């Protein structure tokens, strides 16, 4: 029973234990949030100092207090014959409509491209041609074809968001392991059951990643499109304010866009955690 004796000798009180782990590489596991918050505080402070000290002309850089007041007045009284909520909801309606259309078209097209040589060959040509183009390059064409109203903006946004979703869905199908497919087939799956129960769920993580990228592309396209042609929307608000040299309102507009885009990205992350909790586990 020498083993037991050795164990007793080795026993130590909990406070003496030095917990160790493998030496790491890179940023490690400790949270970066405090550092980020401190950085934000420093930037705010620098902004406040620079504007109060009039280091740059006031026209270019309003003080934080002025921007805050502009935000309050935008919230209470609206701007350019529309309330803040009308501006924001006009933008949200555009991007959400386009996102829904791009998703319902992009996912099946992408899955189809991953499964069929013909679909891949046919859809590759237009997607590879237009996807690298900046959407603003073909916005004038959209306006000539579809007019200055909602149709041209939603079409532009849909096109910008369609490609990343379709490409992601296609990559998702390709990432399905042959073993998983064979396992399902040897359990008697039909083509349809294989798609529904194996291929689609396997591709889901990639589809969600593609959708997140698409929403990012969507926001930048949306704001740019509203700068050029709109009477409402948060991009229009920024443009209009800049024409009156109302720099404080421009700052507010940028802030609102940032909040919206961040909320979307955060929402997508929640959706991912809820829909694909197995991601990275396998």
């Amino acid at each position: 029973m020498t083993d037991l004796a050795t164990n007793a000798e080795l026993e130590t009180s909990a406070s003496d234990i030095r917990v160790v782990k493998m030496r790491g590489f890179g940023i490690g596991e400790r949270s970066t949030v405090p550092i980020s918050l401190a950085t934000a505080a420093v930037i705010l402070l620098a902004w406040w100092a620079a504007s109060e000290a009039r280091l740059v002309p006031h026209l270019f850089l309003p003080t934080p207090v002025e921007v805050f007041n502009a935000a309050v007045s935008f919230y209470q009284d609206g701007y350019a014959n529309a309330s803040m909520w009308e501006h924001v909801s006009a933008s949200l309606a555009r991007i959400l409509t386009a996102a829904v259309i791009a998703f319902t078209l992009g996912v099946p097209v992408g899955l189809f491209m991953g499964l069929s040589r013909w679909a891949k060959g046919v859809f590759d040509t237009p997607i590879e041609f237009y996807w690298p183009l900046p959407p603003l390059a073909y916005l004038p064409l959209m306006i000539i074809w579809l007019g200055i109203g909602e149709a041209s903006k939603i079409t532009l946004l849909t096109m910008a968001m369609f490609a990343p979703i379709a490409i992601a869905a296609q990559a998702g199908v390709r990432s399905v392991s042959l073993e998983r497919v064979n396992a399902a087939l040897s359990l008697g799956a039909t083509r349809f059951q294989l798609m529904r129960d194996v291929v689609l769920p396997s591709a889901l993580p990639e589809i969600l990643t593609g959708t997140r990228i698409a929403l990012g592309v969507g926001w930048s396209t949306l704001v740019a499109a509203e700068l050029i042609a709109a009477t409402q929307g948060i991009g229009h608000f920024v443009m209009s304010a800049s024409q009156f040299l109302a720099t404080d309102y421009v700052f507010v507009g940028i802030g609102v866009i940032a909040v919206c885009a961040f909320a979307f990205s955060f929402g997508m992350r929640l959706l991912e955690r809820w829909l694909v909790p197995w991601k990275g586990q396998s």
Partner: protein
Amino acid sequence: MLRVDKASVYFAARDGRPVHALDRVSLEIPDGAFVVALGTSGCGKSTLLNAMAGFLPLSSGSITLNGHAVDGPGAERGVVFQKDALLPWKTVAENVALGLKFAGVGRKERRKRAVELLRLVGLQEFANSAPYELSGGMRQRVGIARALAPDPAILLMDEPFGALDSMTREAMQELLVDVWSRTGKQIFFITHSIEEALFLGTHLIVMSPRPGRIVARFDLDFVRSFARDRDARAVKTSPEFVELRERVRAIVHQDEVYGRAAE
């Protein structure tokens, strides 16, 4: 009865030349038999299993199950993979019930049969766990239960215990013997462990590479004495077992040497 008749397979090498992976292999797996294929890597044992499963067409020859030609995967041939191919978005019970779902069995009935099968492999408490919460050995047991769910005529097992540690592996071997003796399924089992092959099989085929073919066949009795006496250690240390193990080892090694010399 599964019958393999002069099955040959040629693959295309990277330069386009045909590689002879399986050379006129003939084999019969009678009902209730446990056939083990033993050989070094590249001897064509996985190729043979893939052809039996219907994942791979033959270059020539034929495979029939109870008189029907095999031409594609199907639920009457259950497959257990080397690396379990469980679906991480489904619970353990849903994974086991997958074949029943494909067959159109109702949700309640599926659940009931899945829990029964999980009991057979000793995992009834894990019905609602996610597959990635289980250990490697447990995942393979789920794989076995899943393959059994559609009540296949034969179970095809492609080195299912190859990735497990040796202690888990021995426990899994005993569990598989239990499953086999309780269900009475035909089993075709691939391994490169001589001891595992002798312990599990009622029939043993030894294969050798370039081209893949069967070089020796043995009828075995060890699995039956284990099923009777439940003493794995006595079986594996018995003089008959040790003697046959060394004979088979000699065949495998000799063959490896000849295989290389022939190139």
